[in-house]
């Protein structure tokens, strides 16, 4: 199981556009890539963690990603409602990115509160869908499911429950099969079942 903060850490590597207010002629070389040059007023791509850091020092302005507008999010929401399966989202970390940008740079993003509500709606809808499909999966005893377009945070919400549930079910089933074999063999041997060996270990 991952902690939500760990998933946020992964989300911080996503690329975002910023407009710096300072000049730095050379590239900055990082493990995740080289970024630059920084020119005041000209937008450039950096990872989110760099953007947040610069924003906290008030040396840049963050440009909201394309999908982060109320209209776009409503569109996604309608699409998600209409579809039986999970739809593809513009980014795998929509919840985390919204959360991070709105805490640090709420002034840079127009209609921040509406965006927050829309993202929460989208999340709730997808989680409800996920939970009902998990339940269906267990109820009908299916053996495979495709998890297309699920985001890490959503998967993490069922991760602590789902494998253990399947494990418990498998343990119950497993022993049914072995006992069925035993029954078959005892039936074939006639009315008096032959002495079968019991395992005495727990």
């Amino acid at each position: 199981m991952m902690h939500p903060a760990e998933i946020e850490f992964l989300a911080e590597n996503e690329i975002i556009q910023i407009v710096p207010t300072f000049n730095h002629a050379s590239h900055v070389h990082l493990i995740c890539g080289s970024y630059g040059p920084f020119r005041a007023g000209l937008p450039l791509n950096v990872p989110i963690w760099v953007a947040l850091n610069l924003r906290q020092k008030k040396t840049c302005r963050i440009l909201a990603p394309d999908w982060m507008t109320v209209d776009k999010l409503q569109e996604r929401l309608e699409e998600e409602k209409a579809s039986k399966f999970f739809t593809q989202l513009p980014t795998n970390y929509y919840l985390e990115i919204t959360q991070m940008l709105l805490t640090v740079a709420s002034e840079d993003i127009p209609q921040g509160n509406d965006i927050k509500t829309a993202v929460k709606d989208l999340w709730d809808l997808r989680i409800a869908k996920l939970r009902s499909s998990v339940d269906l999966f267990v109820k009908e005893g299916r053996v495979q499911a495709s998890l297309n377009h699920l985001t890490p945070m959503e998967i993490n919400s069922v991760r602590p429950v789902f494998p253990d549930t399947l494990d418990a079910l498998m343990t119950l089933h497993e022993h049914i099969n072995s006992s069925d074999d035993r029954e078959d063999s005892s039936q074939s041997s006639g009315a008096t079942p032959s002495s079968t060996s019991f395992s005495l270990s727990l």
Partner: protein
Amino acid sequence: MNFCRQTQSNSKTKSFNTNSINLKSSRIDSVASLDDFPFTKKILTNYLNEILILRCHCVEPRRFQDNTTNIKEINMYRNIKPHYFSIDAIMAAQEKIQCSFIKKVEHVDFLDSIYSDKDEESDPKIELPLWMVKVFLVGKSIQFDMPKAYNEIYRGVLTADANVVDLFKLCKHFYLFGKFLSQLEHREAYEVRRTLIQTFIDRFKQTMDWAQNIDDNQPCFNRLDCLERLIFNDARVAQQHLNIYLTEGSGQMEIAAMILNYRKRKIHESRVLE
């Protein structure tokens, strides 16, 4: 710890059982309680201690501090399957079953010092723990009735609506004990197995919903079987993390202890060099 709580409750039920048997017949009470098998009890106690020590060594729960709640443990290596050292499995094997001997049983006097010279033939009903029944069944010298939670009436109740049943009250280790029972040779074993699986499937959605949605879930928690409680607790902890993350954010990142120590050592080494 989980284990201490269970032993207490187990000893309570044990003494209760002994009392109830005392009323019925004066002879059976000596067999019914584990206290009367000093040898077995000693082995079992040593065994439990050993398990406790082993568990403490093997499993290192990751600890961290939450802002709103106390220190929580995440056990990443939870094992749902009953294994040799599983305390739940041992406790489940301790549950009593009503049974009667159909054959004369000999050479068990080392278990029961009081009735060392008597046979167990043609006894009326007697209550034995599951692990003993298992041993006697190998010699086909015993037959047993399905315990209350698994008899035809309760199977009907569970099939009708498993969600309303208070499983913990019915049987603490409903699934494990049921599983062990259905491994024994009994005419109802097959139905018991089917009921177990169906009950688990039917109750799963409810367990998940309770864990993820309700804030005050003690009353719900009390109705779950031990196996369901494991799943419930995991889901609960994860949901709390998510809620805290959504309301308060992830907080400041900290420098790992390893890096800090490494730095200290570096400084120390450079000083020594100077």
